[in-house]
């Protein structure tokens, strides 16, 4: 998201608007990317993002091909750069890369001619998630500028948080992050956000609340005392949500830890737009693919 300008973001969101209807038709296919090859290279497990990209590519008639770390030669000890060079030799148009190491797509993109889309790198960025979140907010609120947004949870280990912070600030929203002190990274204020810890304080007068998944798989044991304590003091329930604006929307990138960062009542309640986020993900990813290879220009999205 760092490299995208306000105009770039607006173009992507506008394009997603016009492509969204394809998914609503009976024949969910447009010929726009016929003859283009899209490689889905997921070095790390993913359900939502991977299927979203795959559906997006197929609805635009691109040929898709999936590769995961366990089915690639990386299990045989091939380096990322050699894998990149080998994929490039087959001349794909786009490589969508999900990787557990921050910065991997930047290195990867230097080794290939194909456009590279960052589908999440380590704890760094997840730009298409931020774009679909921006799209959802714009759709619900009519715009992004001037909105008050709270992002609550494991900010330190979240690429979703990082990309959203960059994107939201770029588009003129104000952002407050909240979570246990151990999950707020040092120097985050320098990005332009305000920091609090109590979720009730964070959601006060908010237009949008974004919750983050507690990523048990990324954490050392000492970051917070227990899931029970987290749920009680940092999870969002309907009561805490009362201090937000009346028309607040609640977002979550999934997968949900119900009863931990989000109560059932909030997840399934009237403010939740969680499933709309998923639907919009397809439109936004179609837009990104279209803008990258639908015309003649070739670039990277990160």
């Amino acid at each position: 998201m760092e490299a995208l300008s306000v105009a770039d973001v607006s173009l992507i969101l506008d394009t997603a608007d016009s492509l969204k209807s394809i998914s609503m038709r009976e024949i969910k296919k447009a010929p726009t990317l016929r003859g283009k090859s899209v490689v889905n290279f997921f070095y790390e497990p993913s359900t939502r993002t991977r299927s979203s990209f795959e559906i997006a590519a197929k609805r635009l008639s691109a040929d898709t091909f999936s590769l995961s770390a366990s089915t690639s030669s990386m299990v045989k000890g091939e380096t990322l750069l050699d894998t990149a060079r080998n994929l490039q030799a087959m001349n794909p148009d786009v490589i969508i890369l999900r990787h557990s190491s921050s910065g991997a797509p930047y290195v990867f993109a230097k080794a290939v001619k194909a456009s590279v889309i960052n589908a999440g790198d380590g704890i760094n960025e997840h730009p298409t998630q931020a774009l679909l979140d921006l799209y959802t907010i714009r759709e619900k609120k009519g715009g992004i500028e001037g909105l008050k947004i709270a992002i609550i949870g494991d900010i330190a280990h979240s690429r979703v948080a990082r990309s959203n912070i960059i994107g939201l600030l770029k588009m003129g929203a104000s952002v407050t992050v909240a979570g246990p002190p151990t999950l707020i990274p040092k120097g985050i204020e320098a990005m332009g956000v305000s920091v609090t810890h109590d979720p009730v304080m964070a959601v006060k007068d908010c237009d949008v609340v974004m919750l983050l998944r507690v990523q048990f798989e990324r954490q050392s044991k000492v970051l917070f005392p227990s899931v029970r304590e987290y749920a009680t003091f940092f999870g969002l329930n309907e009561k805490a949500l009362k201090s937000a604006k009346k028309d607040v929307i609640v977002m979550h990138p999934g997968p949900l830890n119900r009863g931990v960062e989000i109560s059932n009542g909030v997840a399934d309640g009237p403010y939740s737009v969680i499933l709309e986020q998923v639907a919009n993900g397809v439109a936004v990813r179609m837009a990104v693919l279209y803008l990258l290879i639908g015309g003649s220009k070739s670039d990277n999205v990160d």
Partner: protein
Amino acid sequence: MITLIKGGSVVNPHAGTVEKRDLLIEKGKVSRILPKGALGETPSISTTLDASGKMIIPGLVDVHTHLREPGFEHKETIASGAMAAAAGGYCVIACMPNTAPPNDCRSVTEFILDQGKRADKARVYPIAAISKGQKGESLVDFCELASAGAVGVSDDGFPVLNSELMRRALEYAHYCGLTVISHCEDQNLSRGGVMHEGEISTRIGLPGIPGASEDIFVYREISLARLTRCPVHIAHVSTGASVELIRRAKDEGLPVTGETAPHYFTLDHGVLVGYNTRFKVNPPLRTSDDVDQIKKGLSDGVIDMIATDHAPHDSLEKEVEFDKAAFGMIGLQTALPLTLDLVREGIMTLPEAIKKLSSNGAALLGVPGGEIKEGGNADLAIIDTEYEYCFEESDIFSKSMNSPFLGRMLKGRCDLTMVGGKIVYQRDT
């Protein structure tokens, strides 16, 4: 065989002077130091080296080099490292024990000494491990290793986590005449980190290593020096807080010394944006405030010496994802010009800079070097402090290319290095 070096200016780090002197070299020693042109009767000079417009410095002494032999010869051999050292103006390098097998016994120490002699470039002195297998559990045979030729002990690459073991190492090594060099890192704090923890790591999403992981252990070593009254040397100081701790220890009169490396006074963590693994090093590049504190420490004498922490890694270890890449950068050929930058900045005078690059290191290890005197070893380098050039891979003598300074304009380089009166490096003209 008499060699005359004429027309140059001799840097004397002890006297703090730079004076035009001609040198006569005989049988590996400096036989006479004469005012310029004072050589009356001409003895049978076999070689004359013209050093007009150049500085003649005592050969540099690196107290912290990683040669990868035995075990990782694809990264560096003792011969290639000693050659890179010579090309950088070094006459003495002390190599760390983290090889495979590690240098924790007489046979490895003797092997290193033999390979160093065979290479016949810079003099190579081994630093042995503190603990067997560098596992931090039990002390190696210090007295035997000292008798085999080791000049110091360190578990560099790994901190000694057990404070009692470190205490006993200080006490016992002092008796054996070995310098203890401590790699300060609280690994419970640093584990998983790949760069300095701060604004930049937060922005680019890389796990951080807090400055505190270094400071905590620096304070532990100071505390142990106070307890035992035995000397301790702090390796690769990278934080402003560590500089301050060492400053107070020195004010208190404790036998604590410290080194830093050129990358810690030249680069800050901002260069990590872009994920270039050439900037990945441990301890990591810190903030610009830390850089300023390091410079201040060099200027007021808190930091005694500049070491390279030359750490060669092949592309196999570096051309990978950032978090999987090896820590470390080569530095033998860039330390001199980068230190000369500090002289030009007014941080130190030239003799002070050379003292930190040579004499203080020789004193720490108890090896000859760091001065040009009549009757002393002819270990010296002729340097051109004004020469400007772009540092490129073709300049590198090391087997590995992992320098963070490739493509950078450097000012100052070594033209000739002489060890025991023998020219071991001479720049192609």
